[in-house]
Every structure is written in C-alpha cells, then in structure tokens.
C-alpha cells in the first residue's frame, strides 16, 4: 500500500514539470508561502495562546503561551 502511494505521489509530481524559463511568475515574492518568517512566528504565538490547536504552519517559538 505504501509503495503504491509513493508511486502515485512520484508519478503525479513528475508529470508536472515547469521549466526554469517558465518560472517568472512563480519566482515573485507574492508566490512564496511564508515570505515573512518573523511575522509568522509572532502571529502563531499570539494565536496558539488563544486557541487549542497547534501545528501545520511551522514553529511558534517557545514559552508557555499563557498570555
């Protein structure tokens, strides 16, 4: 099952190949998933102190998150 899943992922990934010269739009700053890591840390720390869920968006730093 794992091998089938891995094969599926690899075949799916390999069928979409954008050439380097086609990457003009993809290379723009607005296309980065996390363009400002410092802002993301502050955001996640604030939200995780007020909500029960964590994870999925990267590190929120340390501390108890009690405030």
């Amino acid at each position, binding site marked *: 099952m794992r091998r089938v899943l891995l094969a599926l992922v690899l075949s799916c990934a390999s069928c979409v190949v954008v050439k380097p010269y*086609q990457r003009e739009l993809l290379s723009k700053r607005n296309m980065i998933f996390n363009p400002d890591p410092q802002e993301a840390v502050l955001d996640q720390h604030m939200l995780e102190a007020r909500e*029960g869920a964590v994870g999925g968006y990267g590190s929120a730093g340390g501390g108890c998150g009690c405030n």
Partner: protein
Amino acid sequence: MQLTRLLALVIAVAWSSMSSADDSFTAKTQVYADSDHTTVVSPTVAISRDAWRGGSLSAAYVADVVSSASIDVVSNATKHMSDFRSEVTGGVAQKWRATTFSGSYIYSTEHDYSSNNVSLGVAQDFFQRNTTLALGWSFSENEVRRTGDQEFHRHLLVTGLSLTWTQTLSAKLIGQLSYTFTYNDGFQSSPYRFVPVTVDDGITVQFKVPETMPMQRYRHAAVIALNRHLFTDSAIQGDYRFYADNWGMKAHTVQLRYLVSWKDVTLRIRERIYYQNKVTFYEPHYATPQAYMTTDREATTLLSNLVGAKIAWRLPIARRSIELEAKGDFLYIHYYDYPLLPHRYGGTGELGLNVLY
C-alpha cells in the same frame, strides 16, 4: 546569564553581517490588546547572513511584555499579572546540490517558565525543483514554575515531526501538503488555575481544586495550501488545516490572503476563520471532582475570526533595499461554553523595518 550570552551572540552576528552581501535585518514591534484587559507588546529583531558557500546563519530575539487583568486572571483571585518573556533563536542552514539541511535552537524564559527547543530539518528538491519534500524534527524541554512557591517544579517534553510536500502545479500555481505530529508529555495544566466545584445551581462554589490535565497529548495537524498568481503582480493564497488530538479536540482553520504589488508598494489583505470543539473533560460547572478538570477557555468550544491588512513600501537606496511595513489585524473570539466570557474582541498593530543588503 545564559540569556545574556545568547544576546551577545545575536549582536555579534548582527554586527559582523553589516558589510556582507545578500544579508537581511528585520526589526518589528507588535502590540496586541483585547477587550479582556490584556495587552502584549512584542518587539523583535532578526538577522540572516550568507556566511559561506551554500551556508547561512540566522539569529533572532523576541520579547513579550504582558499586562493582564483578564477574567481568567481575576477569577483565580489575582487582580493583575504582568510578565516579561525573552526568546533567543539561532539557526544554521546548508545547501548541498538539491538538498538543504537546517538546524535551530530556541531558548525562551519568563519568571515562571523556561524552555529549550532544538529542531532539525532536511529538504530535497526533485524534478527540476518542481517538487520539494521536507522533513522536520523538533524537541522541546520545558520547566514550569509557580511564583511564590519555591517547591513547585514541573516538566513538559514536546516532540514534533513534520512532513511537507510542495508541488509546482503550473506556471502560475503552487500547492503544498503538510502534516505535523506533536507529542506532549508532562505537566500541561496552569499552575495558577483552580477549578470550582459547585452545588446543583452551578453557581455556589463548594470548594476549588487545582486544574488537572492529562499528562500525554497526541496532536495531529494536516494542512493543504494553494498559491495562485493572478493578473499583473498579484496572488491569492488559501489554506485549510484540520487538527485533532487525543483529548477529543477537533479544529478547522481556513485562511485566505490576497497580495498585490504596485511599483514599490505591496498590499496584503487576509481573513482567517477558526473553529474548535471542547476537550472531552471540559465542563463549565463541575458538580463533583473528576480525574481531569479544567476551566481553561482555550479548551472550550470556540470560533475565532481574524481580518487584517498589511502594507509594505520598498525604498531602493544605493545597493540596499529598505522596506517599511505596517499591519493591522482585528480578532474576534466567541466562546460557546464559557459562561464568564462569551465574547472577546482584540486587535494587533505592527510596525516593521526590513533591510536587504
């Protein structure tokens, strides 16, 4: 003393990076205030430097200056609390062919809590950089103390694993799937929170007992994200997160961001909606003592909505690029099952400076 040394390291790396190329320096201050009488001021500085061929160093410092007279604080017989948290981060990354190795260390301390966090990661590009798989591991050792009680020491260990698959889907579209597993083992209650046991009317308090949470928590989070380029220089980003843990909590998060750049100005608007159900052992009123008891509002059923905007203005000066930014977010939280506070309104403002060398 340990913090002083780490701060000295941050300053030393910052100073040494001033004359190097392709480096960055960031300084921001964020202020959070809400209707529950809580204010948090968070100044932060961060630097990164291309230190050698394929290798980079980074360092950051964050402080939280907290002042609160929230309902959670007041209901535990304290009129007001204030705290100061310092966090220092050091990181290193090394690129080798299509592989990037990274590692970081975080030390965070406040008067009744300290934590040491180590994380390692590896990312591998495939298919002409159209596919990236990243694997991450983190470990955190936390010490919990209680003000005014020298005998109170508790420990919490947190281990995390993450797997991220980023995929180019077309010349205008990128997708990302990620999964994070976190295992908490140790003290997860508040050392200050006491849970009232009431008579049948749910109001008259018989006595109070210390909050008791389970010692183990297994947490799973899966995120699917898409980033699509639109006309001229704009993009729309969206993601959905599903979260579940062994305390019975399930949560859903939906985020949408629109970014548009015009000349040297970039504007971002965003909306974030979050919903969670309560943990299985949370009750607004306990009639008898239970094995696990909490009045933590973050453990209740809640809905939150964040709406905000950010504007950044890039000023090309000589060979450096200086960027000024301002951000404002509005946060609303509705607690479905927390009688002391059904609603909470808050706002975040931020001013920042980014310098690219």
